[in-house]
């Protein structure tokens, strides 16, 4: 009985808010991730629009410097950590078990725990807005601007603690997917038969578990500097070094950008075969190139520090490794193009976004290679040229890829098709708006506009291009509205999708849309890379099972959300402690106890509620 471990009755109802809060079903967790990511996309997008309104005219005073600085800091942090990463997690969660023929991830409750930590961390950070302490020191929080001495409010505390909490959740998700992919594959699903998306997820999961520890440590150092006066980044007299932060942050930060892009690369690698009606060209090379990118990604961090005076040796070495990354990335681009060759291409919305991804990401990659040229970077660094580069790879890359994935798998997730006309409108508006927004930024960089300036003088000649950019950003906003309408409309009255609307080849399309909560009635046996195309290898598709025969899935659990909540509140207690010691310590202590209780409850809780099991047997 649940009662023997819990304080609350174990929730078993399949619907209602409580069911979502306690769910451990990977498909529901995916939806939670996706909806949250979209919410933060709107938020981060609105922050961007505030910036664009401000910059639309020279010497504008629509928002204050403080507001503007908070906007780009939170825009960057939000888009990277609360949009693209959770959007990736949404796809991992929904697709990985389906693609490898599993019923769930290896650790369903840990999976829920990851989501709640992510959500609470993000909320904690954004809560600073209501405390009038929105972080405002840039998304990579360079020391010593983040120290108590130069940050006159608790804004940086929210940022540090929010990131730490999200980081723990993400790392846990990394473990989960490493184990899931390595261990939960259906019989016959050998590594080299896995869809490329699964491969990219595996690589991303490894990147996460190796790249997040340095970030965790950097944040911990900063936390100690801020709360306990240690000497890592600020007190030069005691040996501190502001550059230590930059090294630690970018040792994390560069692998992080591949964490952001590899899922999108996986998505397009699976979309392309479906809409060209032929297998991916050079599957092995695409997979291998992904691994090489991930590996090299750990050896290039100092290209973010070319202007810090590291000296000729470091600059030369990091320029070389950075350029080297163009090679495996090029391999991917060329293999995608070769997949088009000889194909029978249909231009459904997912395919349009995939083509958008390939072209726009490629342009962003090329400007990245320009940064790798040290002298050129000495002129480009910290200008709008950089801003152009990373929006081409992050928006033109990650966001286009994610959109492709949404249009592609929405039918599987919801059971309904998204509208094609609206989808195409969305695509073209976004493509045009995107280029209008970010293409002129290259020129702004060339003519010397620094980034992170809330205003610029009239005589600089920046105004016209900035107006174009601001106009473009509103076209993007319009495209997002079209997308929103499309989704809302389809959920209500979209055309039913059927099992395999695109005629795709991978396992997730062999089961009903939306899938049963147990995914596969019978675990399939896989005999090829394209099980649904290969007639002979077609896996048996058994009908849905009668209720009494359904596989029993892990039951919901409230421990993950409780533990995540307690951890977040301990962090909140630290912030309260700054203002009011006793109140803070009380919160920390009580929430610490709740967390401990939660961990015990979790460990002792059986995977399935016994009452539930007995219903079925």
């Amino acid at each position: 009985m649940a009662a023997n471990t819990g304080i609350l009755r174990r929730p078993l109802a399949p619907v209602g808010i409580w069911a979502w809060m306690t769910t451990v079903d990977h498909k529901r967790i995916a939806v939670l991730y996706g909806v949250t990511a979209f919410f933060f996309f709107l938020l981060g997008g609105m922050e961007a629009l505030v910036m664009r309104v401000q910059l639309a005219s020279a010497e504008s005073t629509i928002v204050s410097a403080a507001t503007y600085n908070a906007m780009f800091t939170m825009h960057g942090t939000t888009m990277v950590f609360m949009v693209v990463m959770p959007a990736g997690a949404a796809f991992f969660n929904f697709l990985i078990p389906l693609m490898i023929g599993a019923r769930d991830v290896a650790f369903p409750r840990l999976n829920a725990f990851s989501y709640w930590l992510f959500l609470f961390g993000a909320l904690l950070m954004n809560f600073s807005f209501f405390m009038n302490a929105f972080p405002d020191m840039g998304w990579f929080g360079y020391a010593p601007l983040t120290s108590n001495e130069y940050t006159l409010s608790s804004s940086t505390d929210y940022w540090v603690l929010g990131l730490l909490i999200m980081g723990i959740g993400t790392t846990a998700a990394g473990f989960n997917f490493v184990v899931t992919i390595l261990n939960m594959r259906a019989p016959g699903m050998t590594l080299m038969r896995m869809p490329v998306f699964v491969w990219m997820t595996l690589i991303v999961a490894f990147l996460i578990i190796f790249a997040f520890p340095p970030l965790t440590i950097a944040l911990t150092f900063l936390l100690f500097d801020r709360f306990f006066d240690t000497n890592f980044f600020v007190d030069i007299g005691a040996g501190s070094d502001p550059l230590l932060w930059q090294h630690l942050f970018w040792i994390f930060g560069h692998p992080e950008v591949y964490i952001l892009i590899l899922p999108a690369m996986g998505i397009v690698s699976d979309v392309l075969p479906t809409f060209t009606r032929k297998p991916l060209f050079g599957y092995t090379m695409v997979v291998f190139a992904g691994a090489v990118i991930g590996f090299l990604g750990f050896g290039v961090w100092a290209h973010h520090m070319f202007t810090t005076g590291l000296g000729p040796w470091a600059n030369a070495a990091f320029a070389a490794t950075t350029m080297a990354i163009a090679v495996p990335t090029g391999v991917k681009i060329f293999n995608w193009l070769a997949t088009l060759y000889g194909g029978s291409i249909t231009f459904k919305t997912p395919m349009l976004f995939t083509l958008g991804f390939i072209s726009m990401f490629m342009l962003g990659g090329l400007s990245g290679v320009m940064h790798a040229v040290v002298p050129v970077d000495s002129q480009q660094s910290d200008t709008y040229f950089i801003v152009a580069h990373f929006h081409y790879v992050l928006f033109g890359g990650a966001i286009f890829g994610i959109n492709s994935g949404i249009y592609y798998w929405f039918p599987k997730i919801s059971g309904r098709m998204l509208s094609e006309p609206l989808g195409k409108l969305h695509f073209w508006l976004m493509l045009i708006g995107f280029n209008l927004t970010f293409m002129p930024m290259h020129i702004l960089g060339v003519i010397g506009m620094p980034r992170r300036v809330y205003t610029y003088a009239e005589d600089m000649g920046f105004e016209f291009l900035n107006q174009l950019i601001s106009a473009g950003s509103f076209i993007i906003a319009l495209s997002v509205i079209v997308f929103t309408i499309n989704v809302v409309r389809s959920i209500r009255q979209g055309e039913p999708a059927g099992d395999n609307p695109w005629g795709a080849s991978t396992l997730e399309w062999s089961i009903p849309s939306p899938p049963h909560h147990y995914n596969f009635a019978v675990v399939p046996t896989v005999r090829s890379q394209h099980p649904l195309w290969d007639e002979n290898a077609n896996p048996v598709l058994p009908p849905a099972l009668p209720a009494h025969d359904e596989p029993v899935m892990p039951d919901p659990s409230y421990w993950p959300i409780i533990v995540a909540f307690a951890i977040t509140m301990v962090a909140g207690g630290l912030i309260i402690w700054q203002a009011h010691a006793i109140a803070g310590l009380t919160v920390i202590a009580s929430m610490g106890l709740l967390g401990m209780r939660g961990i015990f409850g979790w460990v002792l809780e059986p995977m399935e509620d016994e009452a539930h099991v007995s219903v079925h047997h």
Partner: protein
Amino acid sequence: MVRFPKSLTPLLMVALMALLLAVLSACASPQSTFDPKSDAADSVLTIYILVTVVASVVGFAVLAAMVWLIIKFRAKPGVPARQIHGNNRLEASWTIAPILVLLIIGIPTMFWIAGTAEEPAADVLEVEAVGHQWWFEFTYPGMGPDGGDLITANELVIPVGRDIRVTLHSDDVLHSFWVPQLVGKTDMIPGRTNVLETFNVYEPGLYYGQCAEFCGSAHALMRFRVNAKTSANFSAWASAHNSGPTAPEPGTAAARGALGFATCSGCHAISGTAAQGRIGPDLSLFGERSTLAAGVLDNTDANLKAWIADVRSFKPIPEGARFMPAFNNDTVTTLDDGQIADIAAYLNSLTAK
């Protein structure tokens, strides 16, 4: 099916427009990196153009290939897709080709980096720049009175045709020293000494500089100017700087202002006078400067008065930061309009004549 030529038109238009704009605006900005005025900026531009051309060629080639492929292989009834899985020779060639392209940009990069280690000419002018939240201080070691330091702020005065080497420090957070037309940026880091690449300016003029590393609320307004003078004018400037101002005519506004400047001398220095504060910018020869407030305002009488009256109306200074008080309502020393006008007159009188 989508009809390609038509639907691509907007894209092409955007690209074309962008290209046109690039050409038009490259000359328009005083901070354009494509309008170099020193040997250092020139050498960067050469490699910059090389890299741009390489990247554009690769970019257009890949885009063109993609467009050709999607037009050529769009679904046609009765033409099934060819089931191709891969091709080792192709894989090898498109692994090697990028390597070759990278060598084209990589080798010049390495040579350029090696070049930075070269020693500058013997007559190099050494300057120390210190970044403060939110202004720049420049020190010329050994060029001041009695072999001491010559100190100025926010306008770096240098001779043309001579190698300039700037060492960089910071007094508080990170800043970055950048004069797009003269030299690429290098960061100013507390506890470290960085050396800017040596540069040699071609012609006299006023060049725009800007702090390029986010340094807090007024980062956008942390600018400066480089004033490149002929060698003779530079020497004249330095000696005028050192000899200090001639006492203003008694009874004039400037004379009253000189006395009133005692309010300011705790923070500001004017060489050759009793004012020796080092908290704010050195104001020697202030009348010679083209800007005020770290390159943000034109140095006019009206601006100067308004600045002294209330700095916060020009710069977003956070509460509690150590900065110049707003003298029209300062709790310690309030100055009335007349006093402010006097001080402004005094500061404007500080010229090399």
